[in-house]
């Protein structure tokens, strides 16, 4: 009986873990994705290795939220928390409010991790938050991303 119970427990855990697994686990910005990812004013993207072959990313996750000051405030608060563990921080502040932030986090599981945040207010308020995991060094990765423009 004990063996049967164990098998059932493993099945249940395996099923539930599928929906629980999150790559940005342990980061405060996860809350932004969880809270606003499926809302009507947002576009959330998650790409992993299945369609990132040929790219320098191992994981790409982004969220773009339009006209939502509460979301922007939450994002800024979360970034401020994640910033504490960051190896490198670059940010642009306008009127005392960060409008662009680049956080280089310490590597985890051999992956470099980046958080990119941008908030433009004109012509409309658009917040973009991006989380990237890559085997490529963060600096090179950022250059690669910005070169893509």
């Amino acid at each position, binding site marked *: *009986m004990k063996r*049967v119970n164990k098998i*059932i427990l493993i*099945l*249940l855990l395996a*099923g539930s873990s*599928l*929906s629980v697994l999150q790559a940005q686990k342990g980061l405060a910005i996860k809350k932004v994705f969880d809270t606003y*990812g*499926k*809302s*009507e*004013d*947002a*576009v*959330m*993207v*998650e*790409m*992993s*290795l*299945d*369609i*990132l072959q040929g790219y320098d990313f191992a994981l*790409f996750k*982004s*969220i*773009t939220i339009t006209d939502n000051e509460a979301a922007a405030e939450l994002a800024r608060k979360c970034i401020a928390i994640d910033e504490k563990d960051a190896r490198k921080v670059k940010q*642009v502040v306008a009127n005392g409010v960060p*409008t*662009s932030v*680049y956080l280089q986090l310490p590597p985890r599981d051999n992956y470099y991790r980046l958080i*990119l945040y*941008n908030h*433009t207010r004109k012509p409309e308020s*658009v917040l*973009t938050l*991006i989380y990237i995991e890559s085997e490529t060094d963060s600096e090179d990765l950022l250059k690669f*991303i*910005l070169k*893509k*423009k």
Partner: protein
Amino acid sequence: MRLKFRSKIEIGELERLIDRYYEGLTTVEEEKQLYKLLTHPDVKNGYEAERAMLGYFRQKNTRPQLISIPVLRKVAVVAIVVMSGIAALQLLTPDMNATSYAYVNGIRITDPGRVKTYAKVSLGSLTNSEDLVTKSLEDVSSRQMIENQLDIFAETE
């Protein structure tokens, strides 16, 4: 059927069946009944010869450990419910396990081409911040800006 051997009537029944067995008069049904009575846990002592004759000793010693049917049934029900739940989840949300996806205004998209497009759009917005930094640096180094600031002092003179 649960048997009780506390009454003399049931012991008497056992004795009667044994007698009939030795006389070769037992029917198939009576031998089944005799089997049940001899193997009952309450009949501990005596009747070894009869048990040996019917081969019950060996059966008792090598008796496999059985899982009771109600427990087995419960386990089966739980397993079926769990498996059905997982199967239903797979059927109702066929793309839930897709590791790459996009949510656009709450609607899930799993088409790789469209997902990539939305990813590129979000990356595109980052260029604004780079432009802003570049522009700020240009402003700082701009001779025009310095001249403008000096002009302010010039006006005060």
